[in-house]
């Protein structure tokens, strides 16, 4: 087991220049900054249109110190395949290819290409930063927008459907590594990237990204909101290593504590959930409790 990285042992080399075009308090800016530290200098990035395209800067200025190929919305993972194939033909085996795409670019329009690359076993890291909507185009619903969230195109009733479980879809591709992370726990993201770097085939990361304009909270509370999602048991941090599921980091600790923060606190910290009724929240709380009862039971059996 590798030692846990702390804020003191985190490498100081930066791959994102200061002063990006990200919104104030953007969760992605944190995850990207720390994620690139873990990926390291010898990396080629692939980015489809998304908030990250904006963060990257406008030609001829770039905010990232790593080579980056900007590609069309639906083609992220296939582009990673093309880079990998070329590096292989050039005999360059030490370069990491990493794709960073949003939740719409992953769970909706990019899912076919991602599934194809995963099935082919292409050796790269795919990181989906999930701010739970098409935030770059002005907060429309995506496949991973949660039930009840108000968005620009679910303006009054909120989203009526469940969040799509993309990590489970990716786990069904028999990947060597699937992990969930949160921008509120950046060191966990760092450690997980380091852990999976040498594993074979495609590695999938799903990163929960609090978004001040999309979720409706004061930018200063981004970390708090992100942590509440985990502490309430609403969003779980886990790894699936060669098919083995294991809660990790803060979620693992929740199993030890046997105590979840009521999910109401997470919902009430954001304006996007303002139409959720007490009954709906109670219903969601029941679902969370049932999910965690299963986690506790599994823990007791071990």
């Amino acid at each position, binding site marked *: 087991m590798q030692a846990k990285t702390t804020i003191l042992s985190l490498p100081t080399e930066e791959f994102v220049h200061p002063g990006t075009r990200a919104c104030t308090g953007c969760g992605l800016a944190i995850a990207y900054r720390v994620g690139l530290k873990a990926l390291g200098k010898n990396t080629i990035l692939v980015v489809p249109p998304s908030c990250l395209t904006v963060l990257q800067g406008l030609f001829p200025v*770039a905010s990232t110190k790593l080579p980056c190929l900007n590609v069309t919305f639906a083609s992220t993972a296939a582009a990673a395949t093309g880079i990998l194939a*070329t590096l292989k033909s050039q005999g360059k085996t030490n370069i990491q290819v990493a794709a960073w795409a949003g939740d719409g670019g992953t769970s909706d329009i990019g899912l076919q290409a991602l599934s194809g690359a995963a099935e082919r076993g292409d050796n790269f890291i795919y990181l989906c930063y999930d701010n739970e909507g098409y935030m770059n185009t002005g907060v429309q619903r995506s496949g991973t927008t949660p039930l009840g969230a108000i968005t620009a195109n679910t303006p009054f009733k909120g989203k009526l459907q469940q969040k799509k479980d993309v990590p489970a879809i990716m786990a069904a591709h028999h990947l060597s590594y699937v992990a969930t992370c949160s921008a509120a726990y950046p060191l966990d993201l760092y450690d997980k990237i380091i852990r999976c770097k040498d594993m074979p085939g495609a590695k999938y990361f799903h990163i929960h990204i609090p978004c001040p304009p999309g979720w409706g909270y004061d930018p200063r509370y981004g970390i708090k909101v992100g942590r509440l999602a985990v502490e309430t048991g609403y969003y779980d941090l886990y790894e699936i290593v060669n098919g083995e599921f294991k809660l990790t980091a803060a979620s693992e600790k929740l199993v030890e504590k046997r105590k979840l923060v009521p999910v109401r606190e997470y919902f009430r910290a954001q304006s996007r959930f303002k139409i959720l009724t007490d009954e709906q929240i109670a219903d969601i709380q029941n679902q969370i409790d049932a999910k965690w009862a299963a986690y506790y039971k599994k823990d007791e059996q071990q």
Partner: protein
Amino acid sequence: MHIIEDGNAAAALGVKLCRANVIAAYPITPQTPLTEKLSEYVELGEMKAEYIPVESEHSAMAVCIAASSTGARAFTATSANGLLYMHEQIQWAAGARLPIVMCVVNRAVGAPWNVWNDQQDSISQRDTGWIQMYCADHQQIIDSVIKAFWLAEKVSIPIMVCYDGYLLSHTFMPFDLPDQEKVDAFLPPFKPEYALNPDEPASLNTVTLPDVRIDVHGELAHGYMEIRYLLQEELRTSLAVAAAAEKRFAEIFGRGGDPYIEPYRCDDADYVAVGLGSLTYQLRVSVDALRKEDIKVGVMGIRFYRPFPDEAIANALKGKKGVIVFEKALSYGYEGALASDLKSALYEHLAGTGHLPLVQNFIAGIGGREIRTDDLTQTLRAATQSRIAKEPTWIGLKL
């Protein structure tokens, strides 16, 4: 060495001789035998390349775009709806100035479903910023693939090598298989100006503003409009580079001709039939028949459709009484796209000279409808006698 193979094999052999590094393909009829052949070469170790069996045509072009951006000689092939599914990526490859070569094995597009030959697929990609070459036989297919890689890499513009599905892709014909040493002499390894690598980080295809912008060194960088203008300008000047490619090819391989057009019995002709692809060779039979009746007709195949060799075409057609355009595609709502382009070229170069030919337009072979040579001969004969009643006129329509 002369061999007898089908048109798809001719294309595959061309790609092998060009030592493509990355091949990505998704199966679609009638392209499949071409890409199957390539997978065979790679699996048998006859070709040192990465063959990527992608999950869609959109991804096939994505792989080619990324591979080319990383410094690979990249190839793909498709047909019909596969080409249409790629459309976004096709525009992207041209905008990113990547010298990808793609064979388009021409087939009708849906709806309704139809797997037979016409040219609506590649014609509908006319305005994407790609170079388009059309082949009339197997020799032209293999030679065009080889020339295409050289030209694409010279001008940093992707190229479609188009040939008719079944009529060429699935028929066997003798052709000369170029020697590997000669191809290597013709086509040096691909060395792009920039390829993605961590030692020289650069962000490619980032958001580019409507106006120019100062970079970190104080230099003025292009805006989107300048980048797009250069694509147009360099497409136009690539016509001259194509002539250089033809000359270089002729020097090494001992065959070649006019890089843009392929005239047959046109010199003394009063009327010239014009078309793209194998149809122009079929028209030669009609021309020969009509010549026996003392009707002075010729036929001209257009090998380069984009960039459009307007000047060469206008020069070749100057003073003719009539130009009869046969097409297996059209710009729905108007007429054949080639007819429109021809009229524009003739008007541009010949208006006011007194040598402007009359242009008539026929649509044939849509969705693989059989084109009988007798019908072509009859149509051509009639077109030399009187102006057709309706533009365009569909040949062989049973309504």
